[in-house]
């Protein structure tokens, strides 16, 4: 039984403070106006074309610390929805079951929920629709003379080696989250996500290269030129990726776009940005 259901049950049984009431919160989630080019790490220019994220479930807590120390949940939304993080218009995604009171912390997942009863997390339909991913980001970056299209597809979830059963994002008192939940369904919560926050430490230069053949390297990029190298470092062949409308990617060679996974520096940047980057904006009415 969820924490809010327990609280509601106790309320109905007359066992807790009768100044609290059962209520609801209309939940809206949106993104940010982040389609304009922006400066990434080391001055590269990044343009985002797609940033779909599975947001939820979301829990609001009474104490200043969420997570395992969230003894009393004041509001819960147990679903997830795909959010276009490039569209600042908040979209109604559901209704939170709640009780009145002051909420001082929150915790949420990105469509994939860690369970205490199973090592395998629960992938909610929102994440399923993203190919069992929490986030899909597409864009392009201008780095060292090349315009590199990229796709980043990531899952973000607790694993058996981390805090099983606890949401991946938990606020602390420094986040300054302090809101009163009104009675009679009178509250609305708008959450705004900014995908630029997920990419702050991304090192896009890791995608490209400008070197000559060297011993031990099979394939080396010299800017947009793909070089195939012999064991002794001699150049065997080269081709201009740009002439084919492609880019030369480090370790890959000529390619249409960079497919970035979780094992890469950029993938780690996105994971850390989603969990420990700048927090979403929460607007409570």
């Amino acid at each position: 039984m969820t924490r809010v259901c327990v609280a509601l049950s106790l309320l109905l049984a007359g066992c807790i403070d009768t100044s609290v009431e059962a209520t609801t919160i209309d939940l809206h989630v949106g993104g940010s106006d982040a389609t304009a080019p922006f400066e990434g790490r080391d001055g590269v220019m990044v343009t985002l074309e797609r940033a779909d994220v599975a947001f939820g479930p979301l829990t609001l807590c009474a104490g200043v610390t969420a997570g395992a120390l969230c003894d009393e949940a004041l509001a819960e939304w147990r679903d997830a929805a795909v959010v276009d993080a490039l569209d600042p218009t908040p979209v109604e995604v559901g209704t939170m079951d709640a009780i009145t009171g002051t909420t001082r912390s929150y915790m949420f997942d990105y469509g994939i929920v860690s369970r205490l009863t199973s090592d395998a997390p629960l992938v909610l339909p929102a994440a399923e629709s993203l190919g069992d991913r929490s986030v899909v980001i597409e864009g392009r970056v201008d780095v060292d003379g090349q315009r590199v299209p990229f796709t980043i597809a990531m899952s973000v979830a607790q694993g058996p080696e981390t805090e099983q059963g606890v949401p991946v994002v938990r606020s602390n008192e420094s986040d300054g989250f302090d809101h009163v939940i009104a009675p009679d369904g009178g509250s609305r919560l708008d959450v705004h996500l900014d995908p630029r926050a997920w990419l702050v430490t991304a090192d896009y230069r890791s995608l490209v290269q400008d070197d000559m053949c060297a011993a031990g390297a099979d394939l080396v990029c010299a800017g947009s030129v793909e070089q195939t190298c012999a064991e002794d470092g001699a150049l065997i062949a080269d081709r201009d990726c740009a002439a084919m409308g492609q880019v030369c990617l480090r370790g890959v060679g000529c390619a249409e776009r960079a497919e970035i996974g979780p094992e890469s520096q950029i993938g780690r940047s996105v994971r850390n940005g989603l969990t420990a980057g700048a927090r979403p904006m929460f607007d409570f009415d």
Partner: protein
Amino acid sequence: MRRTIGLIAVLCLLVGCDDGTGTPGEDVDVSVLLEAEDTITEGLAPGEGPEAIRDGWAVTFDDYVVVIGDVDAHLSTDDSVQVEAPERFAVDLVDVPQSGLELWTLSGLREGRWELNYAIAGAADGAMPHDSVTDAQMTRMIDEDLTYLIAGSMTQPGGRSCPPANLAAPGVAEPSGEPNAADDPCYANETIAFELGVQAETAFGPCEVDEMPGFAVTAGSTTTIALTIHGDHIFFNGFPESDEGGTQRLAQWLADCDLNLDGEVTREELEQIAPSDLIELDERFQLGGSPITPLTNLWDYVTAQLKTQGHFQGEGECPFDGQAHDH
């Protein structure tokens, strides 16, 4: 009237009222100890056990100075009933005896359950040095308004550092063995020192043990409680809030922060490195509970971990905040 009083008494019984008044005239003095977890006094060993460092490194601390105090307790049933021991002390936890160090007294507590809070604060606002702290350490802590001054080293036979290739400045050092999974060259580095002067002001509390808040005072009894500072959170794979049992301790990431391979990790090096730059900070790490956000470099990461080290009665939990203490 009697029926009303009886009804009130029954209601109080049902809702567990406890006005904590106790017996007038039998207030109790509570001794407050400072304890150091044995990870500080004895270090951390490598191994597979739940409190061992899993990736082969041993860690020892030469100094672990902390500024701690601002102890306050209030009656669980009445916030206005409050007792304080506001003194702040700078103490080298390496020298704290196993039995703890008695530093504060909370005087005149009535019977009942009391909630406890304390703080780790900057040294510049009236901290008193304990005998375990040298003049030089105290001067530095005051000048830089530090909360922690930690010096130690990590060792591993055959240990290596694999700094991110785009940030490394290896000088004349030659790579040793295979690169790491990110193809960063690795260099022999069996002993790596660190000295961390950190500003990590944190308020802790209200503290609890096994979900019971604070401590109980019984008239006529002797009560001693302990503030316990842990020493291994820098090596945690995340920011667990309650049970640390599922937490792993890993240290290779810190070894990989020796960018110039001089056998020492410095604040300047940690500030240059983003968590995502280190292949070692992979999916074994979950940073979503950090008290500092955004986490953009490893100095922030170390500071964030130090903010979580305040405990109570050994493993009792004390929620931490990220707000600086007002001076």
